[in-house]
């Protein structure tokens, strides 16, 4: 991580004050992002999001069958895991990324692990009291240029949109015993229930007296306090996490939450639109029997 001189710090802070940031953006402008789903064929769902010229997140979703928890026997669960690859920064080599991995994993798990994420957990249960689906969400940070958490949320939402869970057929063996079969047919696989309600995170960084979204690495270094707010499409707040050392004035706090709600709304709308467009294109190609080419890392200029 680079060190920041006082002059640089002043430059960034003054910039935020006058609504003009170092890369020409305003306080509430997002960087352009590249999004693609379905790039990992071994996963049930996957997505890659590249934000601006840096931050690169790859999310793979895998579903597996496991025993239900004894205290909640009619629900499945979602397990999140975030890993920072050393290709993003040298600091992540060896165990260097452990703290950050934990922090990001927890942040994601807190939002997606409970009912606030909108997924119907009961539908993940296959046989009550016995078996359920577990949705493993693995996010990898391949490249870093600020605002990682928001990118992870976006990539996760996209990957879950792309995820298909195989259908199961339950047989009643009598005596209260059940058996099930996983249907192999890909066409039969279903999307998770409640996918449209999955929230995304909006991180607001407080610099000086102003606050910005989608901070660059240098801006993150000048951040006094930051607030990550998870919002869903109905502008309900699904989680708040305050980070960094500084404090936030109560008045500013509610202003920041309002901003996050507004920004989150428009981000979700754009994301959904993008995902639907992409899916439509893929479906069209499949109907015409054309080869579906995934660009992956070749999508950039």
């Amino acid at each position: 991580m680079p060190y920041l001189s006082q002059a640089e710090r002043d430059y960034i802070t003054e910039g935020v004050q006058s609504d003009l940031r170092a890369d020409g953006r305003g306080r509430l402008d997002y960087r352009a992002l590249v999004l693609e789903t379905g790039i990992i064929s071994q996963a049930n769902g996957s997505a890659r999001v590249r934000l601006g010229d840096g931050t690169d997140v790859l999310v793979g979703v895998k579903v597996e069958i496991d025993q239900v928890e004894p205290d909640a026997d009619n629900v499945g669960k979602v397990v999140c895991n975030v890993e920072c690859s050393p290709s993003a920064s040298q600091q992540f080599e060896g165990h260097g990324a452990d703290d950050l991995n934990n922090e990001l994993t927890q942040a994601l798990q807190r939002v997606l692990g409970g009912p606030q994420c909108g997924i119907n957990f009961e539908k993940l249960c296959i046989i009550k009291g016995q078996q359920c689906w577990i949705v493993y969400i693995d996010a990898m940070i391949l490249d870093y240029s600020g605002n990682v958490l928001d990118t992870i949320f976006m990539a996760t939402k996209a990957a879950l949109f792309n995820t298909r869970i195989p259908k199961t057929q339950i047989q009643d063996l009598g005596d209260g015993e059940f058996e099930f079969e996983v249907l192999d047919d890909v066409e039969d696989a279903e999307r998770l229930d409640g996918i449209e309600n999955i929230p995304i995170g909006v991180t607001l960084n407080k610099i000086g007296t102003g606050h910005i979204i989608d901070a660059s690495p240098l801006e993150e270094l000048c951040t006094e306090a930051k607030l990550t707010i998870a919002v869903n499409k109905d502008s309900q707040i699904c989680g708040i996490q305050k980070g960094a050392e500084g404090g936030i004035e109560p008045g500013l706090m509610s202003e920041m939450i309002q901003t996050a709600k507004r920004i989150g709304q428009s981000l979700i709308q754009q994301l959904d639109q993008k995902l639907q467009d992409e899916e439509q294109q893929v479906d069209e190609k499949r109907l015409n029997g054309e080869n579906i080419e995934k660009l992956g890392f070749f999508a950039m200029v």
Partner: protein
Amino acid sequence: MSRLELLTPEGLRVDGRRPNELRKIIAKTSVLAQADGSAYIEQGNTKVLAAVYGPQEVRHRMQILHDRAIINVEFNVAPFSTSERKKRSKNDKYDNGIKLQTSQFPRSQIDIYLQVLQHDGGTLQACINAATMALIDAGIPMIDYVCASTAGCIDKQPVLDLNYLEESSDSPELTVAILPRTGKVNLMSMESRLHVDMLESVASLATEGCEQIHTILDAVVRDTTQHLKDSLMQ
């Protein structure tokens, strides 16, 4: 033994390739913003990302070599890369015999980080090829490309570039890395049983594969450089 027919009577393999045919290779350099050099390579469905940092100061002073650079390789597999989700230890390390002009950088360190995003056989060869591309992208002087390829043997027929299905069905797999210009063998590794009479033909097939890979990778590097040159001229 699986009952799967790996080689049809017509001599075609499970994915429709001929025995001496490589999978489709696409590669790209400079894919990451932070690293000094980076490359991404797809060999069929095996996808590997490589990042290179350095030459730079050695982090642990004990490791300093006074006459050349040390090379540190970290290898990581994504949990979703295989058909079963697994969490792996980070420290599966490969020593991939990269030929660098390390004597040009005494008392320094070069880090290579490899990330397997999707695994479909031939991880080692893909990692070596990706690392070579990333090192070239980082501008580190090398004697030559290091190109790697695998070859195996199915029903006494040497086959090139095994995929996961072929790799996992008890067929021997030999990985060979060469310096294409001199043809010197840099790495040869096999962890299974192969009749000694077959070894030579399998090894020569793998070497042939390396040369094909060299042509592909060289074209990518030249293309990228030309592109860079053109954009500078404008």
